[in-house]
């Protein structure tokens, strides 16, 4: 009898206000994106044009691909500050190999991706096996790896020209009006979303972020899973390196600066909790879209790049505040 009573209570209908609050939480990012999109379309003449939308997609492709790995890292309760350095490093490595005719283009690109993944492996090992905090480790690799990238550039007279036609193709081609980098972005997001929802790895990532000790007691290989996540994150940055080469046509020592925080901003705007365990990778792309829209709008309105940097900073702070508020409310 007591049981049926409890059941009835549990099954009681959720009142409308609450229902509304729950859906606001779920759709918050979507609504913000839609609102900004509408406002920008109405206030800037050139905002809602095919060409500008393509621009936004090109602009957001790299950030949002970095943000996939960043989402995973944040989901397991970590952080990776080194991704922007990995972008430079892998771009410099693959173009250095191509430029000096060390190996064929395909192999060189593969080598660049491998170098990127290796950085992730170092991150993961230092964090999980040595037990240093992710912030310190990835801050260290951020500087060390950027330095290594710049070393490669310095050997090649400070600049590396991107010469291969494959990069031109990535830069110039569109499929059904969608630029290639964006196509790649959508494909990667689809794969990541399926991975998080449908594979054991995805389940383990949520478990580790939610409660690492409990995950360990459930037989989840926590250490190896976390190391793998750092490798995946860095690998994503390697792909970012390919796209960066295509977009810029030349690799200079400053490439990639600011990308890490743009990616983190996208993740937080997408609703992933900084404390780990809660979030959806497919919502990160919306976060990246919001960031890209805002930057693009400011460019159209003729606001200087220096202001844009400040605005990105304030967006990340604002998003962190929202993250904190929603966390304390769900208490």
């Amino acid at each position, binding site marked *: 009898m007591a049981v049926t009573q409890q059941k009835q209570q549990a099954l009681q209908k959720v009142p409308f206000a609450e229902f509304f609050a729950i859906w606001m939480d779920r759709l918050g990012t979507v609504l913000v994106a839609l609102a900004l999109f509408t406002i920008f379309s109405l206030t800037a003449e050139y905002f809602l044009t095919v060409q500008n939308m393509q621009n936004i997609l090109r602009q957001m492709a790299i950030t949002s691909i970095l943000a996939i790995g960043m989402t995973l890292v944040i989901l397991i309760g970590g952080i990776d500050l080194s991704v922007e350095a990995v972008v430079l490093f892998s771009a410099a490595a693959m173009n250095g190999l191509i430029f000096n005719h060390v190996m064929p283009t395909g192999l060189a690109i593969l080598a660049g991706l491998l170098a990127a993944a290796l950085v992730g492996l170092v991150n993961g090992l230092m964090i999980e096996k040595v037990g240093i905090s992710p912030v310190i480790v990835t801050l260290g690799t951020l500087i060390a790896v950027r330095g290594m990238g710049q070393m490669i550039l310095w050997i090649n007279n400070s600049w590396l020209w991107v010469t291969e036609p494959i990069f031109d193709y990535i830069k110039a081609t569109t499929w059904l009006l969608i630029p290639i980098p964006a196509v790649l972005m959508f494909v990667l997001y689809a794969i990541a979303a399926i991975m998080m929802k*449908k*594979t054991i790895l995805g389940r383990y990532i949520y478990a580790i972020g939610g409660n690492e000790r*409990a995950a360990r007691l459930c037989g989840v290989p926590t250490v190896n899973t976390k190391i793998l996540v750092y490798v995946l994150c860095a690998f994503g940055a390697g792909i970012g390196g390919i796209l960066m080469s295509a977009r810029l046509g030349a690799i200079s020592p400053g490439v990639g600066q600011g990308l890490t925080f743009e990616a983190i901003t996208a993740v937080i705007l997408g609703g992933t909790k900084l404390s780990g365990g809660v979030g959806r990778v497919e919502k990160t792309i919306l976060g990246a879209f919001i960031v890209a829209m805002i930057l693009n709008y400011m460019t159209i309105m003729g606001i200087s790049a220096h202001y844009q940097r400040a605005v990105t900073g304030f967006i990340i702070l604002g998003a962190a505040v929202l993250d904190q508020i929603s966390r304390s409310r769900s208490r």
Partner: protein
Amino acid sequence: MRGISKRFPGVLALDEVDFSVQRGTIHSLIGQNGAGKSTLMKILAGDYLPTKGEILLDGQAVSFHHPSESRARGIAIVYQELSLLPNLTVAENIFLGRELGRYYIIDDNAIRKDAQKVLEQLGVETIDVNAQLSSLPLAQQQLVEIAKAISFKPQILILDEPTAALTPQNAERLFEILKRLKNQDIAIIHITHRLKEIVEHCDWGTILRNGKVIKTLPITAQTSEDELIELMIGQEVESFYRQFVDHELTGQRILLEIEDLMIGERVKGVSFQLKSGEILGLTGLLGAGQNELVRALYGIQEGVSHCKVRRDGKAVTISSPEQAIDLGLCLLTENRKEEGLFLDMSVKENISMPSLSRFLRSKLLPLLTNLREKRAVQGIVEKVNVVMRSAEAKMRTLSGGNQQKGILARWLLRDLEVLMFIEPTRGIDVGAKAEIYRYLDSLADEGRGIIVVSPDLTEILGVADRILVMHEGSIVREFHRQEASEEVLLANIQGATVNSRQGTKGNGSYATETTGAAESPLR
């Protein structure tokens, strides 16, 4: 408190609750997990705002938006989990956040003196105010927590399961202290699952069920535990007692054989066997090594210096939970929140976590099949009777007892042969307790081996076929259920060598005895 209601997403936790306490009494709040006891107290302490209703203090309406506001009005609360800082001294902990002193310089002497006074008020001046908190045993830490609450000079003192982690003797001492406070005209509100404590020590009792007050009654010498249980669960008690069916033990397979297990100073060379179809009880004082022992068998104990384990006669090493699970072992620890639950994941995901590889589509396409997973979870959940809105509901929304049943369901789904439990019913109400005991029993009947570690002697006596008593890292006695009684166990866990009731040592003779059947986990 008048007409208090509190609604959480999807649940009405409190429904028009009226509750009042008088000065100089100990008032017990009684109810199953999820009945709303803690929620009610959190509202009184200013942790939650009530959705509806008002709080009257000495006849005056008040409302608390923050714990500090209720504290200022003389309401102090001691939560289940300790809120002390292990690296500070006792005195520093008591006055944390309101250090005495002038010009931003802390006056250590004044703090020590005042802390000493508070401890004297409690009658526990033997605790050294300069001792680092982590050096004290858990029971004394609990007293420091209460001392901290008392130092606010409260008019109302709320204790949320203060005795859950204490041994019976320490709990007794705590009640002596509470009686002292009661005589100082403080109102004490006390939450516990130990009905014995209520009957013996409390003056009033208020029974909550599903967020409603069922009854407020004076607790007298005539009040019986059964009466309280009936009010709590709303049905006759009989059905909740465990029916003993002796497991047929002779000639059973030896599932697990441990030889000379050593963990530094904490476990000093322990050997025992676990047979199939047997529930083995492991008890002792806190820190006697029993928890470390089973944690070592699950590969999560640090500092294991020597351990020889044979599983089905084969020598094995266990250095991680993954290996342990592969060998057919699982462990449910007493820290449900920290070591068991994924609060933000669904009940389904919580339960299927160790069994995921079973729900893959195929080797070539290693994707999870939602339908098969859901069906399997649903089946096991019905068997264990987890009350929830749906399998997709977050674990956070379940009550403590149902969460524990959820973890049990997780391992039943994994279908392992050796199940180890540390305090399987800690902080769980009687109804869920009885259900869990029943599952343990049926699992043993299926031929599994079960180890139950618990300092709760009634629990051990209630479930175990065989009882091992640990003292300071060694197994000091072995009993069969019928030979043991609470008194004998109590003496043994403290290191005394008292003979068992029948005066026989653990050998085959127990099979003919049936006197133990009267013992029940509820009494």
